[in-house]
């Protein structure tokens, strides 16, 4: 019987480790081979501190977690700057370094002799002396930690992480704290892995450098891949299979003891290859947020100026009277069992937090529309790439609550200008003021939070996320710690409102990689609108759209502006832009060549010469 309990405890440890890695590898998309390093750090912290009677078990866990957190921050730092596989190789190096340290730093780790006699788990004076009691404790811990990670994954934080996995630039453009999310996720993951290491050391009573190695690290990766990247419970199940395999193999096959090791490894390899070839997303792939009909009905009025009724998946359209019980029944986001309580009416505090945020955003909108201060003032911006002048001495002003169009042929400098205003490109000279505040050297994230939000010509949607999730990421507060751990219903409602407004509700639960080009463009706009931006920079909104889609988009832009926002449309579809905007800017060869009302600008001979003339020829040809 002890053998079974022993297996149970080891499984629990692997479940914790695999689920912790899943947050990094599955949810955040960080391909790391260094996760076993945190197990080693936790294990050695406990082994060294308890055998030398420096601390007891529980404090040793915290020491391990602390060291792991420091290492995690060091590892998280290059995530955003190193390209994919170089990061993986570097993490590999960290893993090898930790293993070689535990071998060569003999004064601390006792080298390859290992550390024997690690005292058994004891909490608050109670020692868990029997295998059974330790195993039960471990299994309970494993379930709790899995629940915790499942909750994080389903929360607004998890959705933001998945968005970042798909496009960091897009997450930045929406004002998501990408650095904070990366660091936070990494530290959380490392802490859980370190705890698993401590538990291992206390359970087996012995630790040496062969316990947590590169192979362990890869097995953890295999558990995540086989289970299903991003799906916490599937990963937990996958880790059970992988950790039981070497113990079950000798029971069902006549392999001698010396062969079991390599035979198991061969089997692991075969399973992993088969899984990658046959089920690349894992046995049970990641699940998206799915919203059932009626979920978003409620009495809370929509925070934005849109008046469309909230309706999901063709559900009932009536707006119901306040009914907390009914709301609780309705607030069932499937596959988010852990989140239910927080989304239902049972958590008014969270609603208040989110609602407060929205009402905080609304007055600024109102105030800005009343003020006579221009939304954006660009002064003498210049940008050079090597010898090429992309932008020379560009100055203009965008009036508040006005739609301005920016026209220019390819290479006129439009995209560079947009990149500079949104903070993605650093200008060589000049300055930018947003409502009178200088933002020339402010990061894209901070700019987006101040109200400057851009879309991308190449869209950069969060491809693996649904339409609803894409828009949810845009909502202010999503991805920020102070928004709490759930998924506030008001966030869902804001997103749902926009989907309704843009006629995208039919695609709410569809992954955006599977929807049409025209709808993808609308999703990009919806995502940007969800931020409640005061200044929206829209890159090429009309290209590739049908006339009907352009009309729909124009209507949305008008209603956005009527609620006090300012819009800058960049396009080379002269016809669509001139017929729609209030104010027109025309660029050519990096400079502004005309500015004014569409009528005035389009009759300007210089503009006709430089732009419209050519455009007409192109259209004719």
């Amino acid at each position, binding site marked *: 019987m002890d053998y079974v309990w022993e297996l149970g405890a080891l499984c629990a440890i692997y479940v914790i480790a695999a689920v912790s890695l899943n947050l990094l590898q599955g949810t955040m998309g960080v391909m790391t081979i260094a996760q076993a390093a945190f197990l080693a750090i936790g294990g050695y912290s406990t082994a060294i501190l308890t055998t030398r009677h420096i601390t007891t078990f529980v404090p040793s866990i915290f020491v391990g977690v602390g060291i792991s957190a420091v290492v995690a921050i060091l590892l998280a730092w290059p995530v955003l700057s190193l390209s994919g*596989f170089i990061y993986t190789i570097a993490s590999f190096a960290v893993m090898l370094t930790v293993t070689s340290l535990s071998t060569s730093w003999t004064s601390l780790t006792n080298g390859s002799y290992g550390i024997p006699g690690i005292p058994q788990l004891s909490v608050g004076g109670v020692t868990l002396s029997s295998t059974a009691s330790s195993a039960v404790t471990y299994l309970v811990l494993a379930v709790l930690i899995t629940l915790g990670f499942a909750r994080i994954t389903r929360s607004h934080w998890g959705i933001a992480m998945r968005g970042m996995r798909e496009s960091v630039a897009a997450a930045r453009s929406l004002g998501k704290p990408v650095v904070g999310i990366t660091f936070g996720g990494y530290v959380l993951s490392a802490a859980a892995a370190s705890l698993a290491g401590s538990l291992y050391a206390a359970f087996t009573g012995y630790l040496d450098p062969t316990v947590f190695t590169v*192979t362990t690290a890869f097995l953890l990766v295999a558990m995540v891949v086989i289970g299903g990247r991003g799906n916490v419970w599937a990963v937990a199940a996958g880790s059970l299979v992988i950790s039981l395999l070497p113990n079950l193999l000798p029971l069902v096959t006549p392999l001698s003891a010396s062969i079991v090791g390599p035979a198991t490894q061969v089997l692991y390899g075969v399973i992993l290859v088969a899984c990658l070839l046959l089920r690349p997303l894992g046995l049970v792939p990641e699940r998206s947020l799915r919203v059932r009909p009626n979920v978003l009905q409620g009495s809370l009025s929509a925070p934005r100026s849109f008046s469309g009724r909230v309706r999901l998946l063709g559900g009932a359209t009536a707006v119901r009277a306040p009914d907390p019980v009914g709301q609780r029944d309705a607030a069932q986001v499937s596959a988010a069992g852990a989140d239910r309580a927080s989304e239902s009416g049972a958590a008014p505090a969270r609603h208040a937090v989110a609602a407060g945020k929205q009402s905080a955003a609304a007055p600024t909108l109102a105030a800005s529309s009343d003020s006579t201060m221009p939304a954006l003032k660009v002064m003498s911006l210049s940008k050079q790439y090597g010898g090429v002048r992309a932008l020379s001495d560009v100055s203009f002003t965008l009036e508040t609550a006005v739609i301005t169009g920016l026209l220019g042929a390819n290479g006129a400098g439009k995209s560079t200008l947009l990149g500079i205003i949104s903070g993605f490109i650093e200008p060589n000279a000049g300055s930018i003021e947003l409502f009178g505040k200088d933002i020339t050297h402010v990061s894209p994230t901070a700019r987006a939070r101040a109200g400057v939000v851009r879309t991308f010509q190449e869209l950069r949607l969060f491809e693996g996320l649904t339409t609803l999730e894409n828009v949810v990421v845009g909502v202010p507060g999503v991805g920020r710690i102070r928004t709490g751990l759930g998924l506030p219903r008001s966030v869902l409602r804001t997103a749902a409102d926009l989907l309704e407004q843009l006629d995208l509700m039919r695609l709410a639960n569809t992954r955006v990689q599977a929807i049409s080009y025209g709808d993808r463009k609308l999703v990009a706009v919806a995502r940007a609108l969800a931020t409640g931006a005061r200044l929206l920079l829209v890159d090429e909104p009309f290209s590739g759209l049908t006339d009907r889609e352009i009309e729909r988009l124009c209507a949305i832009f008008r209603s956005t502006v009527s609620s006090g926002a300012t819009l800058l449309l960049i396009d080379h579809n002269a016809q669509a832009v001139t017929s729609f905007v209030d104010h027109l800017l025309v660029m050519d060869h990096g400079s502004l060549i005309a500015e004014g009302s569409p009528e005035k600008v389009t009759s300007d001979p210089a503009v006709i010469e430089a732009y419209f003339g050519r455009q007409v020829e192109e259209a004719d040809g």
Partner: protein
Amino acid sequence: MGVIPNLLVSGVGLGAILGLLAFGFALSYWPSRQFHFAYAGVVVAASYTYWSLTIHGISWIIGLVVTLIVSAVLGVACYALVYRRLTDSGAVFLSGFALSLILSNAIQWGFGSVPSLVQPPFASLGNVVEVGGLRIPILVIVELVIFLVVAGAISIAIYRSRLGVAVRGVSSDPDLAQAAGINSNRLLIIVYAVGSMVAAIGAILLAYQSGISPNDGFNPMLFAINGMLVGGRRSFSGGAAGGFGLGVILQLSLWKLPSAWQTTTAFVVLVIIVLVRPQGVFGRKVEA
């Protein structure tokens, strides 16, 4: 004579081996952009093939030829049966690791985990020549010559032959090369085959140098990849030079550092290079 000249001599030997391994990896990596992690398994399989043939009295030439064929078949099999069917680069990386796990553990299953020595075919390879008081093993000279000849010949082929132009074309822009009518699938089969053969030569030299053991593929491969990345983006000869340079630096680092820190040293060099000069030491800068 001091320590440094001797370390330099052994560094040249290690550098030649790592240079070969880096070159072989680069041959398939730059055109395919597939992280051929099973390379480690191919290296081990090559050294065991060679050893198990020659230990039974088979001549070294036959041993070499069979080893080259076995490696080429293994390398191409990894590509054609697995990598080609995967779209995601992370999946390629993981499957490569799994394949390498399969290869090295199958070898351990068959041959046991005890390391074995591999005798060079000529006793004279064990000799040492003295040049100005510096003792240089003949083996090091042979390694350097083989490295220069193999890497040099293939590099020239890449820059002169029609096939070589196609390889460079696919390396710099696979889609464009495809549009230009280059059959990239056939081309990748060729580069995987040639790359694996280069790896086999490196593996045999490594076996002479330090014996064989089933798990000995990983570290040399990591060092080789490291060298290749240091060498430079899309540069085959740069990769070879990077591997060579890294081998020399690793041996020289023994002057002050314990050997357990070699891995760390290698990766510190890599991370610094990646952060400071992302295109590599010999790479050309490409505007993204």
